[in-house]
């Protein structure tokens, strides 16, 4: 995590709080068409009408009147790193983004606060008809395609923070993979929330057309400030008949962040949706990716890990709704807590009467590194099909003193022994991540465990 503020110049920072004027101002500055502004204003009404969630972690400390919802860096979008202003580029260089693009990615997007500052995609993908651009550009360049899908997966009414999101959304990525096209290298978008007391509300919309495949990687981070920040992004994913989408995320927010992100996928016949998720940092996270298996034989798999340290409450989980016949879902969730941190697995498996011969397997494993940390598992299952197969396994345990002694008897310091056990515990998830991200995750684990012993 970069803690130093690179103090970039901002072209514009909205007033704090949320009013109709602010929303109209954001829309005007972006030069949006009326249909987009209409969505924003309708969402604003929803935001006022909907109440705060009455379950989960307390959001009392979050006050929208203290948050600037739109922060525009003094840079327009570039497709060449050399043209990105030095202070902004520095941040992304430190995060390893330009190097990753050269080494193993098919395309990269980089968002700084509210606006995307860099977007690029390899030529051969363009020639195959793949679209990968920032969401604001997509609204202008592909309005029909966007209109067909935008808000159709995650409606404005989903919850209060989605309404907030649609009122002030800015940036994010848009991907369209045409029928039968296999994107063999991943695309990656990186979201950096750099400004204090501000919010990031990026919108990501991905459509994988029939028989196509894509691996999309999302990275998020923010430097540390004393004031609270808010992240309320939205991810809408459509996996068409026979398509495959893998969506990998490593979120490493600073510990003053409210991360209230919404991610959902609609999965059609014979399509596959895979989620890989690593949640680090944040003060409070409420994050429940969801797959709706609408088509017959649709499949989804969720592999996720969260790590909560002192002062952190990470409330995460996976939701799946089986609608089609012979649909299948598999969940592997792991969580770690230390220093009084709290992790909760809050999941939902709903198998509708139409989803005959469907199966779901959920496995949650929670490891507490000390006596003051907490871990909870709140799985909800709603099985309405009589021939469904459903199983749920949950384990909550403390790190084993015997295992620590065993490793220490081979010369490892206590902190190294703990880190090794934790890395091992996290390995089913890190194995699923691209190598660079797995390395980053191990680095984060070591960072979290650093200095707690001796």
């Amino acid at each position, binding site marked *: 995590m970069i803690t130093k503020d690179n103090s970039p110049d901002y072209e514009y920072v909205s007033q704090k709080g949320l009013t109709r004027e602010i929303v109209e101002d954001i829309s005007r500055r972006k030069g949006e068409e009326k249909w987009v502004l209409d969505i924003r204003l309708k969402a604003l009404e929803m935001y006022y009408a909907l109440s705060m969630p009455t379950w989960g972690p307390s959001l009392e400390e979050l006050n929208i009147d203290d948050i600037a919802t739109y922060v525009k860096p003094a840079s327009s979008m570039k497709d060449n790193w050399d043209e990105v202003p030095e202070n902004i580029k520095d941040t992304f260089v430190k995060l390893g983004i330009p190097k990753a693009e050269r080494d193993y990615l098919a395309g990269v997007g980089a968002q700084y606060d509210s606006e995307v500052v860099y977007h690029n995609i390899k030529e051969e993908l363009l020639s195959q008809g793949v679209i990968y651009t920032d969401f604001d550009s997509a609204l202008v360049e592909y309005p029909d395609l966007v209109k067909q899908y935008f808000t159709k997966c995650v409606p404005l009414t989903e919850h209060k923070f989605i309404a907030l999101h649609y009122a002030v959304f800015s940036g994010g990525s848009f991907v369209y993979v045409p029928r039968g096209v296999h994107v063999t290298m991943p695309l990656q978008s990186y979201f950096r929330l750099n400004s204090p007391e501000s919010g990031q509300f990026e919108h990501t919309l991905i459509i994988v057309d029939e028989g196509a495949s894509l691996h999309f990687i999302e990275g998020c981070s923010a430097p540390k400030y004393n004031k609270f920040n808010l992240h309320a992004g939205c991810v809408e994913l459509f996996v068409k008949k026979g398509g495959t989408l893998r969506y990998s995320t490593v979120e490493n927010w600073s510990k003053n962040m409210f991360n209230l992100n919404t991610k959902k996928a609609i999965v059609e016949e014979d399509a596959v949706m895979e989620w890989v998720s690593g949640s680090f940092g944040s003060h409070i996270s409420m994050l429940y990716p969801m797959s709706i298996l609408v088509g017959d034989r649709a499949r989804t798999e969720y592999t996720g890990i969260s790590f909560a340290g002192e002062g952190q409450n990470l409330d995460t989980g996976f939701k799946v709704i089986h609608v089609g016949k012979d649909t299948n879902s598999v969940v592997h969730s792991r969580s770690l807590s230390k220093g009084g941190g709290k992790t909760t697995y809050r999941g939902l498996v709903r198998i509708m009467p139409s989803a005959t011969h469907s199966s779901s397997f959920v496995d949650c494993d929670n490891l507490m590194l000390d006596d003051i940390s907490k871990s909870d598992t709140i799985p909800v299952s709603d099985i309405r099909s009589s021939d469904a197969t459903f199983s749920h396994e949950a384990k909550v345990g403390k790190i084993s003193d015997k295992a620590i002694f065993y490793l*220490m008897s081979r010369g490892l310091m206590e902190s190294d022994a703990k880190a090794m056990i934790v890395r091992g515990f996290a390995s089913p998830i890190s194995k699923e991540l691209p190598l660079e991200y797995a390395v980053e995750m191990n680095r984060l684990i070591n960072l979290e465990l650093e200095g707690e012993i001796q």
Partner: protein
Amino acid sequence: MKNILTIDNLHASVHDKEIIKGLNLTINSGEVHVIMGPNGAGKSTLSSCILSNKQYVKTAGRITFCGEDITHATTDVIARKGVFLSHQLPEEIEGISVFNFLKTAKSKIDGKNVYSTDFRKELMPIMSSLDMSESVLDRDLNVSFSGGEKKKCEILQLMALRPTLAILDEADSGLDTDAVKAVSKGIEMFRGEDNALLIITHSMKLLQHIPATHVHVFIDGKIVKSGDSRLAEQIDMRGYEGYKGENG
């Protein structure tokens, strides 16, 4: 001949219950000491105490290793100085391969970088002498290993880490005859003039293959009798009954 380990009047407790009640032991280089005793006598507590397992509190006494006081040193420091414990029940560590674990341990104990390719080559002859397949290196450490595989894996670590003092806690329990042979072959290969062995056991299996220089009978937290290998034979025939009285 060099002094390797000296334990002087050691007392140790767990949850305020005294388990080790004034134990004395001196081990010199080139020696093979065997501690025998019935189950529940506190034999494993002794090995845990030498390695400063936090579960036990040393209430009195002193332990020196190669002239250094290690009574209150931490487990990792003691290991890095050259004490190895072959655990009675090796822990299963998910997600960490035997190779990565062993490589980390080797670099910590030798205090320098260990290169994967070289180290793997170094392990090959050791593994074949223990009748272990190379694929074991890529399995998660001890996870779903049979009892015999776990014990062999401990001996593999012993041979790779080359300590000055090897403490073998029930290294032969749960092993079939072939495995006992492989394990004792490994121990025999390790044994030398500059190092020493402390074998903790309640059976004679291993002792048929490894000649003991010193045998101690350990009952109720103390060594009640010491002798040479003939003492082990006597115990094998007559059991511990005669010694329990001596401890009053």
